[in-house]
């Protein structure tokens, strides 16, 4: 079995590639996202998901819809968003924003440990806020090479994109408890 042959069969049964030649994406009725594939099939109520949200947030975007049987199905994957018109890009970015809700931490003023909970006082893009994170490994996961994704008691996500971008003092405050 040659390598070339495998990859060709893989390609045939793999994900559907979407690009401007075979896909038209626009905003349809009542703000829903529509997508026409090969000028044949119309999908309505489309939603977009990033497939590499950390390493390639702007590319590899999966478009999905809910079929008549109420199952979510993938229409295809946009490999490179820049191939599409500015307008489509803006539309998709707006729709993608719907799918992600996380706070990015830029400063950590104080971390206090009380009863196995870490009380954070930090700066995010929303402003200064406080939140509580259980002091457990699974609540501060790896994010990219040097970042951390904190999950607070309510499963809200707080991202530190890169721990080493924090001011020294803030980093010490953090790593005193989140040392892993």
């Amino acid at each position, binding site marked *: 079995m040659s390598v070339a042959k495998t990859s060709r069969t893989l390609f045939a049964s793999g994900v559907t590639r979407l690009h401007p030649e075979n896909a038209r994406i626009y905003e349809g009725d009542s703000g829903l996202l529509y997508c026409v594939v090969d000028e044949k099939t119309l999908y309505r109520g489309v939603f977009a998901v990033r497939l590499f949200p950390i390493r390639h947030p702007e590319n590899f975007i999966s478009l999905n819809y809910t079929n008549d049987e109420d199952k979510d199905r993938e229409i295809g994957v946009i490999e490179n968003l820049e191939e599409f018109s500015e307008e489509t890009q803006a539309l998709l970015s707006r729709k993608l*924003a719907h799918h992600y809700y996380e706070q990015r931490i830029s400063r950590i003023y104080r971390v206090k440990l009380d009863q196995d909970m870490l009380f954070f006082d930090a700066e995010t893009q929303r402003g200064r806020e406080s939140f509580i994170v259980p002091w457990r490994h699974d609540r501060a996961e790896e994010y990219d090479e040097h970042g951390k994704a904190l999950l607070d008691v*309510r499963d809200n*996500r707080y991202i530190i994109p890169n721990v080493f971008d924090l001011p020294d003092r803030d980093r010490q405050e953090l790593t005193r408890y989140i040392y892993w």
Partner: protein
Amino acid sequence: MPVLTDEVANSDKFRIEENIHAEELPEGLTGALTVMEMNDAPIVFSIRSDLNLEGVGCTSWMIVTEKEAGAVQVNADGSLEKISGPFSLSDAQKVRTFPTVGSSFLQLRIHGLYFDVIRYSNAKRETFGRALQQFERVLDGKAFQSDAISRPSDLVCDKCGLPLPGRGVMCARCNRDHGILFRALEMMRPYFGLLVVLLGMMLAGVGLDLVPPLLTRMLVDKVLVPHQNVTWLPYILIGLMAASALRNVLSVFIGRLSSSISTRITRELREKLQQKLVSLSVDYYNRHSVGSLMSRVLWDVDYFQGFVSQVSQGFLLNLMLVIGIGFALFSMNWKLALLVIVPLPFVAIGTIYFWKYIHPIYYRVSDSQSKMSQLLSGLLSGIRLVKSFGQEEREHQRFEKSAGYMRDNRNLLDRSIATFNPIMSFLFGLGGLIIWYEGGHLVLTDQMSLGTLMAFFAYVGMFYGPVSALSSFSNWMTGFLSAGQRIFDVLDANVSVSESPEAVPLARIEGSIEFRDVVFGYDPYVPILKGVTFSIKPGQFVGIVGKSGSGKTTLVNLICRFYDAQQGEVLIDGINIKNLKQEDLHRDVALVLQDPFLFSATIAENIAYGRPESNMMQIMDAAKAANAHNFISKRASAYDTRLGEQGSGLSGGERQRVSIARALLCDPRILILDEATSSVDTESEQEIQKALSVLCKGRTTIAIAHRLSTLKNADWIYVVDEGRIAESGTHDDLMAQEGIYHRLVRIQTELTRLETEG
């Protein structure tokens, strides 16, 4: 500046009754219906969210009337602005929550398309989970249940309002200390006599510790310096020797006694924990990781091992020493003694510094150790995978990275300690210098004898150790209290599936099973079984089919009473399962799972697990019936073959057959096969089927199978779909109905054809 702890913890954000309002609009929303262009209709409920559809934080509300639904946002100036809707409920086919990363949408399906009604952050998930249930009821034309508001949140401590680290986890704050120390002491009660002896010996030990400096003082002042009483010399030396010998003998006894008390206590505690752990329900294990429970039994209990020695030697002994030595110092010369106290702040600061900055590095080291051992055990158990993909080099690099991490941390620790210790001893040395200076002055001016000064120094040398030990005792105590907390947490856990006091013993279960409108969800807000009703007569062979995830295993879990239904009843022999003795139930119901678990023991022991008293012939009969006898007898050690962890050493199908034999040996009245034959090849499956068809006679059998051909002979087949019984009947009935079952069979015949052709 945002205030930490209490304010974050107690804010109303988390209180359900603040967030869902039934019947009337909450304050400030009076004009909402107009803004939302909704028709006047009685309000069913409204629910508060914390986001608008764009994901901007704000207060927003979804309002559901008897006719329509929609959402508004409350602007900073108090004005209202429409977010979505109005959606007519008569057009709505379905309501769902659509989770995305960090937030979710509540959506209505209208003409086949989902429309966003409102968006909420993860903080609101529990509240919206309840709202969804109510919304579904509204769409079904049922009434709103006030229970949705009044039932307390599962995620907040009832007492202090602090969010819990997980569903069903005890609030650490409200259970803080909470007599943990007291309970720990309580556990020592049976050893009270021994403890008194222990304390007595320690007291004597402290007394003996104080003797040598006094003898030295006598030696110097009465013999060496004045050159008198030379005959005293040997006696004083004998005295010194006797004190030291006695002291060490005492140490031996103290050590032995305290270790014997603590090992007894820890053994008791481990046994209690183990007993409790097996009695806890399956649900408890869903909420707690096996790893964390293991660490409680194995490591947290170790704190109790240290408890006796820490409290007696670490705390009481040091306290007695500090008091005894302090007394001796002050009685010799109180002014000089005051100087001894000068370095105490340094001792305290040093200890605090150590625990604040150096102790966390210990954590890092142990963390890197455990990461490395994880990596290694993963590597070794997956070694075939690594080799088959030729990834040795990459694994090597990964290991090197992890080893590097460990080296760095170890290095950091060693360097910190190597710096810390000399600084501390230098500081103590400085303290000593002050005493030399002052004491030397006193001796030179004849205000103090040389012997006294030497005795003084000997005591000072013995003084700082206990002081520093005492300051670190509080840290040990913190660790102990949290370990104790985790242990008592398990010991106090509710057995959530408990036997009713009126439970009736049943000598023999006949085997009829009935479900009456059963509603159940692992998460109470997300029902998996949505009103299941059926009945099975004794001795019937019943098949259950359905797509994966449809709730088949969940059904079985309820029959075995691993969980209790939230609504409705499960009856066996006409008796509510809650009123049956667990013992009887588990004696007469046997379960064979898709992924069979075997213990690391011999094959025979595994088969006889439920009936350890069985004789060899019975074990073989069971194995034969499960079509396992042949492959077992071909092995060198046959039935004595010892299996590795989780039954390694057998193929998937072989493990499966051993587990079937195990169930058959119990001669259960109700036999449940949950996809039990799916990893067995078709041929052995047929053989097992043959055996089963004989064995199933006279007992109720429930077979869940995705190879539908195996169910052709079933007396009755239930088709489960999305938590409901969608179809039922015999194979022929169901084929005639041309419904879900028909379609599944058609797909499978297609597949089989492909398989045989390919």
